[in-house]
């Protein structure tokens, strides 16, 4: 397992009395759109800031968040997204350029609000020790190789993630 974690200055109570060990959150990131990349990254960075352990299992389209060639190019769908940054009927949401326009607007929202980009959030998370699990099956199905993923990604299957999640206090699927 790659260890890039910067240890937090809290007592390591793992394995000691129940209730005194560090809390843990286990997140699944299954979506590869710009808007849906943020929630797991925000929750994980908050958790480690509070001294918890946090791990994110990136699976299916969510694996794009760890993909070096894709994580800066995540998009917001203009089609079938009634709450999106530009609100278009589906017939217009499908026209060329609509997704790019919606993505531009969301990037501007985020930038104007001084929110970090997805790559910046990944860096913040990694520096505070969030574990990144890359779904091995997704890699096989979509032809993603280890060299395509950002540093610190641990390739893992469902059993390995569930083993991690079994010790978690909170689990969420995004």
């Amino acid at each position: 397992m790659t260890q890039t974690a910067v240890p937090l200055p809290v007592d390591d109570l793992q394995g000691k009395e129940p209730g005194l060990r560090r809390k843990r959150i286990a997140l699944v990131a299954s979506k590869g759109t710009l808007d849906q990349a943020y929630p797991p990254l925000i929750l994980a960075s908050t958790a480690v800031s509070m001294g918890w352990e946090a791990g994110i299992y990136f699976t299916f389209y969510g694996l794009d968040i760890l993909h070096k060639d894709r994580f800066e190019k995540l998009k917001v769908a203009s089609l079938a997204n009634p709450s999106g940054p530009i609100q278009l009927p589906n017939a217009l949401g499908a026209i060329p350029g609509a997704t790019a326009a919606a993505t531009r607007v969301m990037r501007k929202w985020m930038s104007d609000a001084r929110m970090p980009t997805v790559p910046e959030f990944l860096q913040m998370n990694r520096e505070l020790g969030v574990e990144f699990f890359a779904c091995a099956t997704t890699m096989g199905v979509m032809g993603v190789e280890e060299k395509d993923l950002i540093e610190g990604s641990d390739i893992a299957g469902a059993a390995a993630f569930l083993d991690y999640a079994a010790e978690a206090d909170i689990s969420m699927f995004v």
Partner: protein
Amino acid sequence: MTEKTTDIPTTVEVTDLDCSGLLCPLPVYQAALVLNKLDDGAVLRLVTTDPGALRDIPAMAHQRGDTLVEVFEEDGKQVFVVQKGSSQ
């Protein structure tokens, strides 16, 4: 500048952090980066404008085992005085 007096003795090291204009999770994240480097008993004076911080910073202190000494408003901003570690 008028400083509001707190219960913290003046000999305690106080670190200032201004998170004005930043939204969740940044005030918590940046506060944690500072608190991680402080010694037990040292104090962080955190300024925020995110309305969510009124619940987030107390929650952060609770979860980390730090002590929220005081919260007050100053110049239309929220000021949190957080002492690292529990006061006991």
